């Protein structure tokens, strides 16, 4: 019953009152707005639309269902990816550090500084540092540099307190390892994270 001829006959202009399956699919994509009375009053179109809507609902979860049904992969699959990424890709700008020997050229990379900022911020606890940007010309000694940080906090933390501790920790760490002239550290909290309680925590 599903060869090409029958297919065309089942959803042709006649059974769909002059509309095409293509047109109906676009109508569904638009959320059936603006309402088209000709489509809405056609029994043939309504049957086809119901079928399209069922397909849509299934297709939305199809790859999630596929992924869930797959057996767990061993770690070689992950390491195969991590072994092939270029670690230097995110080194960023070279930041000069003065040295007593005038001929020596010492630099710390922007990527390394961002690593220091993440480690210092995370060490406060209850917060995870996300994207981190250094504004200003870090390659020129003495230039005013602003730090902009994106972060998420664990549910239950007092945000003003934790942000104050994070700024302090980052400032201390940066003074210790760089000669940059930091004039501001701005922290944006973009998410408050809820972790599902473990059973014993619920019982307490």
């Amino acid at each position: 019953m599903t060869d090409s001829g029958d297919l065309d006959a089942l959803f042709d202009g006649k059974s769909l009152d002059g509309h095409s399956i293509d047109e109906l699919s676009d109508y569904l994509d638009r959320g059936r707005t603006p309402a088209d009375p000709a489509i809405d009053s056609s029994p043939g179109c309504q049957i086809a639309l119901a079928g399209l809507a069922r397909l849509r609902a299934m297709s939305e979860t199809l790859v999630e269902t596929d992924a869930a049904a797959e057996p767990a992969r061993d770690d070689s699959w992950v390491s195969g990816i991590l072994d092939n990424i270029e670690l230097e890709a995110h080194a960023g700008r070279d930041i000069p550090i003065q040295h007593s020997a005038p001929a020596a050229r010492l630099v710390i990379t922007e990527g390394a500084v961002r690593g220091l900022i993440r480690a210092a911020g995370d060490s406060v606890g209850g917060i995870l540092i996300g994207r981190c940007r250094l504004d200003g010309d870090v390659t020129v000694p003495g230039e005013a540099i602003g730090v902009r940080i994106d972060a998420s906090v664990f549910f239950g933390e007092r945000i003003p307190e934790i942000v104050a501790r994070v700024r302090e920790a980052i400032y201390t760490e940066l003074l210790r390892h760089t000669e940059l002239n930091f004039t501001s550290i701005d922290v944006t909290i973009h998410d408050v994270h809820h972790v599902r309680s473990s059973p014993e925590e619920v019982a307490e």
Partner: protein
Amino acid sequence: MKAPSERRGSYSLDDADDRTLAGRAADGDVRAFEVLVRRYGPMMRAYATRILGSSTDSDDIVQEAFIAAWKRLPTLDDGSVVKSWLMRIVSHKSIDLIRANRTHDDIDDHEPEAPDEASPEQRAVAKSREEALSAVLATLPAAQRQCWVLHEIGRYSYDDIARELDLPTSTVRGLLARARKKLILEMEDWR
């Protein structure tokens, strides 16, 4: 209840939201990138398999996609959309492979030879609607399946699909119409 301070250790990267992870990975944090690989790798693999119609090349495609993603992450301004961004990279990589392997015959809209007959049996034993849909998808000609997966799962527009697959938009519309008719009919029993 434990005080938040006692539970701080439990807020690890594995629990982090996508924006935090994507931001860290963009800044060069390999551990954050690894969490993204574990979180979305299986779904990306399933998506590649759906587009390609076979899992033979899926692992390679996903690996290539992640390597490209690592390089391009600094250009992703909104890390919260990293999942759909990764899915888009996988579909691009899959399409590249389709284009590289394509012969002119593939563009024709002919039915595949064998699987069509197996479909009713597979439908009869399918345990779920998803399995039934999988079985029917497997019977579609490659070009119909590719268009359908890219539009319905990848949210590609008709014009995007036409450009990516190097086909006229009218052909894409025709392929999608045929795919939809067949899928609606075959899935009638599963409503």
